[in-house]
């Protein structure tokens, strides 16, 4: 079976049937940017036979394709590739969360409508309407309030009910009790022609609380788990060689130790195994985070998830899909993710203290007044006003408001927060652990010695390198702009897996690659800090190219700033000791640990946590994913592997490490503001509760007090934005100064 068929089967597995013979596939294409892209994709993909409908979502960078079932799935990924968009399958499990947001917005809209109309009528009543008008307005209010109670209140009632059923209590219990009692009592007063009705208070209470709830939902972490991404790293199956020599595509679950299978170039290894035929360069970034591929020969072991880059190989399985390297990583991630659920948000901690106080307060008010004047109706009115006035409106807005504003400001700086808890946790950290490759360094090799090679040779080498996809070749080809490169008439390029690239030009054989293959010289292994590629002609060395992975321009400043904030810093890397030591030394003697597997990184973080440290992990690779998931809070740069980005709580898109400090400082500001907001809400209650207790609170005062406290909280939260503006200006200035990558290696 060829590769396209395998891709087709994978596509079919990732699709869902929406109608008879009609399938829907969601593809993620991060390259979609403008109207041109939308048009190109929608018209281009719809032209493919059997495709019924294509819809691009620019906000989520996703393409939804509906297609009719036939013998083969349409080659969607290839077609998108031809249109110039790198695409991959995206799981369509995003629907449920969208529905929850819609339910909230719907409830918010209904509550807003009800609250506004009832408030309008109430103003008339407060202005001194005569008795007839007042009764009419009360009745209209009751009719508007009823659907609001049922439709918008449902969210709070069901949450409160489930809390009570399980024997606990939450913020929704006093809210529900307050709203229901208020509504019932107002209805009773309306029927009996009473003077006061609290419909406005009941509905606007729901409205304000729903604002807080919706904001909270927007910043809350999505239930996306990096585990799904990790699972996708292992292919769905492999071409297993049958006893008669033919190959058959088998699902990954059926692969048993001892089976042999063909792995084409460009595919990932499905299970752990040993190479029995062929040689290739294999990208082990899943295991050690290094982008530098290793050349691999017969007899070498390969781990599941590694990427076969250059040549087809045959491997003999030594594990099943359940015992492969990827499965081990998945188990690690699962345990790391569950151990994390212990965190309790500030708002929840406050409400845990606050709820019983409100309950007891209201009950006390009722009992006291009932004992004093024996009037149950009056006692209930006072109890209700205690419940309303202590309504956690301001409290409900205190955290989500700050978090939404913080997230928005950070977003403008290219920093994405995946949940409000991430910001809260970030403010508490006491140490930061960095990955090396791709986080502190650029993650891809740079040519360091182009000045020492004569220009003709460099041009020739770069032009040959342009025909290979090896990371070193790419770096070499970039050193000479394409118009300056030599144009060859012949297409005589052969890539030798594990060795390099060979080309015949005017009768001479040029080789670019490993020493010992490209030239007659023996390989020298004494240099640890940089890697070399030899350019040779007919066995004679023409030039030696040295590559290093340079530090990011902002790394040193960012680390200095973090240290100034009393955070301890460490480096954990899967790379060899030499390069890690050098990076650590350049950053001012940061403690480091090298040669770490993903398990070891997670173990280190768990150990730190056991000692009581709160660790921020900054990493980019798939190999960092367990550590990112296991750390107290984590960040990943935008160029990180998909899985790294999913596992992290915060993503910074411009890759500069100043984002880490910006986010940390914003998180600390946000925490201060949240505390101020909560303090204000409590102070406000401290004043309001005695008034309510004494029976001074009328519907008018309740409405005014509720609104002002909410507005004060919102205004205080907006202060965060002003501080952030200054930060932004500073960041931009820094960026303009240091544009070029500083290379830490002096041997140019």
């Amino acid at each position, binding site marked *: 079976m060829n590769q396209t068929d395998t891709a087709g089967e994978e596509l079919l597995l990732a699709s869902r049937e929406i109608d008879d013979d009609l399938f829907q596939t969601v593809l993620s294409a991060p390259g979609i940017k403008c*109207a041109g892209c*939308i*048009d190109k994709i929608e*018209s281009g993909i719809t032209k493919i036979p059997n495709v019924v409908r294509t819809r691009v979502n620019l*906000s989520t960078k996703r393409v939804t394709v509906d297609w009719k079932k036939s013998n083969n799935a349409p080659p969607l990924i290839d077609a998108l590739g031809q249109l110039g968009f790198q695409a991959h399958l995206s799981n369509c499990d995003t629907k449920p969360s969208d529905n929850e947001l819609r339910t909230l917005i719907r409830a918010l809209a209904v509550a807003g*409508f009800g609250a506004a*109309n009832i408030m309008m009528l109430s103003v008339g009543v407060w202005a001194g309407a005569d008795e007839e*008008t007042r009764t009419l307005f009360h009745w209209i209010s009751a009719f508007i309030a009823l659907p609001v109670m049922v439709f918008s209140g449902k969210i709070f009632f069901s949450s409160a009910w489930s809390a009570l059923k399980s024997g606990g209590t939450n913020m929704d219990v006093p809210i529900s009790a307050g709203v229901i009692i208020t509504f019932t009592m107002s209805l009773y007063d309306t029927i009996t022609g009473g003077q006061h009705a609290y419909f406005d208070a009941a509905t606007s209470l729901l409205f304000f609380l729903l604002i807080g709830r919706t904001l909270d939902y927007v910043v809350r972490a999505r239930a996306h788990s990096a585990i799904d991404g990790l699972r996708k790293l292992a292919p769905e199956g492999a071409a297993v060689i049958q006893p008669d020599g033919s190959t058959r595509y088998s699902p990954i679950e059926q692969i048993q130790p001892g089976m042999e299978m063909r792995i084409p170039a460009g595919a990932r290894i499905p299970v752990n195994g040993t190479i029995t035929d062929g040689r290739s360069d294999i990208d082990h970034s899943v295991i050690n985070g290094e982008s530098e591929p290793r050349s691999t020969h017969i007899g070498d072991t390969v781990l599941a998830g590694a990427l076969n880059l250059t040549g087809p190989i045959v491997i003999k399985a030594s594990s099943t899909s359940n015992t492969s390297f990827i499965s081990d990583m998945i188990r690690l991630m699962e345990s790391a993710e569950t151990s994390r659920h212990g965190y309790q948000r500030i708002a929840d901690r406050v409400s845990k203290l606050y709820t019983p106080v409100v309950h007891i307060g209201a009950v006390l008010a009722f009992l006291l007044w009932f004992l004093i004047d024996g009037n149950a109706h009056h006692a209930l009115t006072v109890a209700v006003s205690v419940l309303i006035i202590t309504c956690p409106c301001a409290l409900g807005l205190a955290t989500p408001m700050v978090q939404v504003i913080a997230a928005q400001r950070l977003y403008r700086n290219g920093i994405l927060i995946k949940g409000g808890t991430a910001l809260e946790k970030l403010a508490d950290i006491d140490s930061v652990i960095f990955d090396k490759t791709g986080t502190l360094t650029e993650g891809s090799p740079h040519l360091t010695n182009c000045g020492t090679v004569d220009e003709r040779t460099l041009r020739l080498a770069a032009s040959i390198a342009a025909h290979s996809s090896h990371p070193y070749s790419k770096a070499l080809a970039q050193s000479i702009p394409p118009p300056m490169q030599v144009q060859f008439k012949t297409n005589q390029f052969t890539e030798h897996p594990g060795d390099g690239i060979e080309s015949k030009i005017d009768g001479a054989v040029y080789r670019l690659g490993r020493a010992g293959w490209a030239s007659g010289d023996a390989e020298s292994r004494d240099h640890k800090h940089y890697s070399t590629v030899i350019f040779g002609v007919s066995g004679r060395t023409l030039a030696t190219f040295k590559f290093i992975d340079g530090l990011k321009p902002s790394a040193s400043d960012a680390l200095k700033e973090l240290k100034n904030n009393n955070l301890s810093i460490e480096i954990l890397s899967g790379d060899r000791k030499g390069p890690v030591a050098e990076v650590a030394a350049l950053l001012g003697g940061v403690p480091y640990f090298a040669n770490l597997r993903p398990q070891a990184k997670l173990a280190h973080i768990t150990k730190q946590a056991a000692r009581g440290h709160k660790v921020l992990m900054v990493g980019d690779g798939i190999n960092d994913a367990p550590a990112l998931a296991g750390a107290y809070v984590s960040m990943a740069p935008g160029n990180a592997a998909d899985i790294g980005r999913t596992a992290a709580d915060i993503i910074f898109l411009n890759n500069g490490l100043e984002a880490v400090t910006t986010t940390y400082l914003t998180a600390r500001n946000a925490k201060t503001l949240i505390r101020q907001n909560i303090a204000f809400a409590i102070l406000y209650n401290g004043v309001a509760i005695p008034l309510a207790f004494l029976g001074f609170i009328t519907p008018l005062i309740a409405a005014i007090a509720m609104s002002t406290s909410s507005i004060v909280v919102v205004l205080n939260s907006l202060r965060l934005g002003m501080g952030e503006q200054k930060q932004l200006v500073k960041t931009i200035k820094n960026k303009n100064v240091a544009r070029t990558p500083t290379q830490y290696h002096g041997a140019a």
Partner: protein
Amino acid sequence: MIVIALLVLVSIILGAASLALFLWTLRIGQYDDLDGAAERILIDENETDTTQNN
């Protein structure tokens, strides 16, 4: 008195109508792709016609 009742009724009906309209836009997914909507106005819908003319 009857005038006020009538006005209140009319205003509530108008409000309810706009609420229904909002819920409808929400249901058919008009807020799902806000960036896309802004860009889509730039796409020339008569593109197939112009290619025929060429």
